[in-house]
């Protein structure tokens, strides 16, 4: 299901002297099966943007198109349409409320009015997709570890079986292992199950490992939008926003600045290591005594 924003502007507290324009004439189209990273400094409008895609905020002006339909046009069945978009908020574990994991994950499917056996099937499937087993089903979500709670909360969204999954900083506040576990199943959801995934993140390396396309936001506008490799070569613009390209990419860029024959659009450590090794093997010693200090 393709989703799009057309010239969307959103103003918080419109009319008051302290009105804030959170989105300023933003247009963005995301196709079926894409994986898109959404990055930008705090207050750049990322969260407001994803809430528009999920049909939770009505644009002050402009249109939100889900599957080609204007979500806020008269006579549109908004509820049904927006339930095909799954939105995982920041710290989703703060929204857990049921007595058992089973009941919490089942909350969404029950709201859809599905029969009991279908609800059970979806709960089991959602939990397995986030890498949790049946053993956890009858435990209280509040006695789990932080990482597990977060996965249960994400399972609660997956149980809606959305075609588009939007995650707002899904790994915030987790340790490296918890982060990797979450990123692993998000990648699986995209690659194996073919979900469209839109992920808000501060971690540019995380984005690079999931998404082909990156959208950079600043001050309520889309600053850069394109292939990860090309966006991440805008090192200076990113640094101005206090966003840092992945460390290996910056290393490659520094080396290239010093005349090493190395590509600037390498994203992961292995690729950069290989490129550096190749340079050294080729006897590139022009920079002897001029080791970059990164």
């Amino acid at each position, binding site marked *: 299901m393709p989703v799009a924003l057309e010239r969307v502007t959103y103003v918080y*507290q419109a009319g008051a002297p302290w009105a804030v324009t959170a989105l300023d004439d933003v247009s963005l189209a995301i196709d079926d099966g894409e994986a898109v990273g959404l990055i930008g400094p705090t207050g750049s409008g990322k969260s407001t943007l994803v809430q528009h895609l999920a049909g*939770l905020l009505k644009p002050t002006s402009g249109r939100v198109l889900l599957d080609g339909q204007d979500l806020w046009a008269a006579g549109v069945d908004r509820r049904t349409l927006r339930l095909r*978009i799954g939105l995982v908020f920041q710290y989703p574990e703060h*929204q*857990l*409320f049921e007595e058992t994991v089973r009941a919490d994950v089942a*909350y969404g499917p029950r709201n859809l009015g599905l029969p009991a056996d279908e609800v059970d099937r979806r709960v089991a499937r959602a939990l397995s997709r986030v890498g949790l087993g049946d053993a956890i089903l009858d435990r209280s979500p509040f006695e789990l570890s932080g990482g597990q709670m977060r996965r249960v909360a994400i399972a609660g969204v997956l149980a809606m079986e959305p075609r588009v999954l939007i995650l707002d900083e899904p790994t915030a506040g987790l340790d490296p292992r918890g982060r990797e576990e979450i990123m692993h199943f998000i990648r699986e959801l995209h690659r194996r199950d073919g979900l469209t995934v839109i992920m808000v993140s501060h971690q540019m390396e995380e984005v690079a490992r999931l998404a082909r396309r990156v959208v950079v936001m600043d001050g309520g506008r889309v600053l850069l939008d394109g292939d990860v490799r090309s966006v991440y070569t805008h090192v200076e613009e990113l640094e101005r926003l206090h966003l840092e390209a992945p460390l290996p990419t910056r290393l490659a860029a520094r080396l290239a600045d010093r005349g090493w024959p190395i590509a600037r659009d390498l994203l992961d450590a292995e690729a950069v290591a290989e490129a550096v090794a190749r340079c050294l093997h080729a006897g590139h010693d022009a920079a002897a005594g001029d080791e970059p200090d990164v």
Partner: protein
Amino acid sequence: MFRDLLIGQYYAIPSPVHRLDPRSKILISVLLIVTLFLVGGFRGYLAGAALIAVVALLGRVPLRLLLRGLRPILFLLVLTVVLHAFMSGRDSEVLAALGPLRITEEGLLLGLRMGIRLALLILISSLLTLTTSPIELTDGLERLLRPANRLGVPVHDLAMMMTIALRFIPTLMDEADRIIKAQTARGADFQQGGLLQRVRALVPVLVPLFISAFRRADDLALAKEARGYRGGEGRTRFKRLRLAPRDALAGVAAAGAAALMIWLGR
């Protein structure tokens, strides 16, 4: 959803009225409200209304916003006028009668008087809260009520509780907003069904909200203790309230206005 609500009705802009010491604003408001009940004549009320308009202008508060404060009590105002019109002034001239119900001139005038007093009272207190932030207001109250300490009233603790409550209203509203949206995205429907169904639909919002409120309370208590908080004893302030010449000026102006209202409304 809740973001558009004005919290505590504070209208956060700079103005000469906003800059006044909260204590003088509280005392002036009390003085004017007492004056309202000493004034009997309608010319006095007119002067009061004019004073409110002038202060609103000085405070750069839009009149529309100020008058909106009357909306919730509109019913009460009408009821006051009607009840008085029918119930009081048995012996004065009858203006209209419907069976045993009679409207007398005296009753009608008394009703109007009470209605206008009530409306002006609300406008004065709205003006106070529109131009004074909740934190300033509690600070001012704490200072003004300090003598009650000697009577064993824990003024500081009460003020601290009020400050914390006010401080966390916007935070909890934001939190509620986020939780409602998250559950809406999972197909929750807060508008459909009967009363019982709607109350039940709130459980997935209230449980996380309470959990988060307790978590925040725990964190706050720890943070305060870690920084050596031990109640009001010997506590100094970062923002000290200081009376300025403008407070004296405002006080004199208010006293003059009150005298004028009483004189006009003889």
